[in-house]
């Protein structure tokens, strides 16, 4: 039986993709039964979405690309 600690560490280490099939199944079953671990898993996904959103919002100086092209063509 997988415990909460192992499940959340497997999730945060991003190791599930390379894990054996039975481990992936055990995690799935655990998540269906454990609200704390499923909240933890949901928060990792929310952190990813927030990071992508915040990255897209960052401003870049408008003339930067033109300057760069000019310098590269020299």
């Amino acid at each position, binding site marked *: 039986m997988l*415990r*909460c*600690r*192992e499940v*959340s*560490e497997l999730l*945060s*280490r*991003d*190791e599930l*993709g*390379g894990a054996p099939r039975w481990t992936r199944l055990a995690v799935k079953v655990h998540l269906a039964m454990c609200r*704390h*671990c499923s*909240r*933890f898993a949901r*928060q*990792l996904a*929310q*952190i*990813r979405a*927030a*990071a*992508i*959103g*915040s*990255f897209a*919002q*960052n401003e*870049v*100086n408008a003339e*930067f*690309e033109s*300057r*760069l*092209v000019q*310098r*590269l*063509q020299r």
Partner: protein
Amino acid sequence: MTEAAHREVEIVALLRERDPSTLDAVVREHARHLYKMSRVLGFNDRETEDLVQDTFAVFLQTLDRFEGRSQIRTWLIGILYRKAQERRREQSREKKSDPIDTVFESHFDQNGRWQKPPEDLERLFASQEIGALISECLGDVPLQQREAFLLREVEGLETKEICKILNLTVTHFGALMHRARNRLRECLAAKGVVRR
């Protein structure tokens, strides 16, 4: 080869001939993204302009080695990260122990069950400020962890590619991701709890 890969091989062929409009198009497609990456990695605007310029310069010099096996974007990011590492002389190495490990462990009892379950942060994640908060928290994540996190979560690269770019083993990458994500979670939880 996929259609997109074919297109990229064609673009590279035009770049080898120094076709000005292709160069312009490639810069416009990728430079902003590299710029943002560099800023998140902690370089200021001035350093970032230099770093992105260096990245494109190396890219143009190494076009002969581009075989269409990776995408132009991934190729450029690989160069950017190597250049960034060269620039950071005192690059701190990942430590064997990290205080976040103890924080993570403290959530669980001896039987591996939650004794301090994750806080309810739904309202925080739904709020307008989440972008600003995460960017603030990301600033406090040690550099190597931040690099691994960005390549996985924002770039969506495969573990294999990330390990190649950052010169890591898969185990080391796992440790960096674990620490980065738990640091971000704790940082956001602290902000979420304060807001309540």
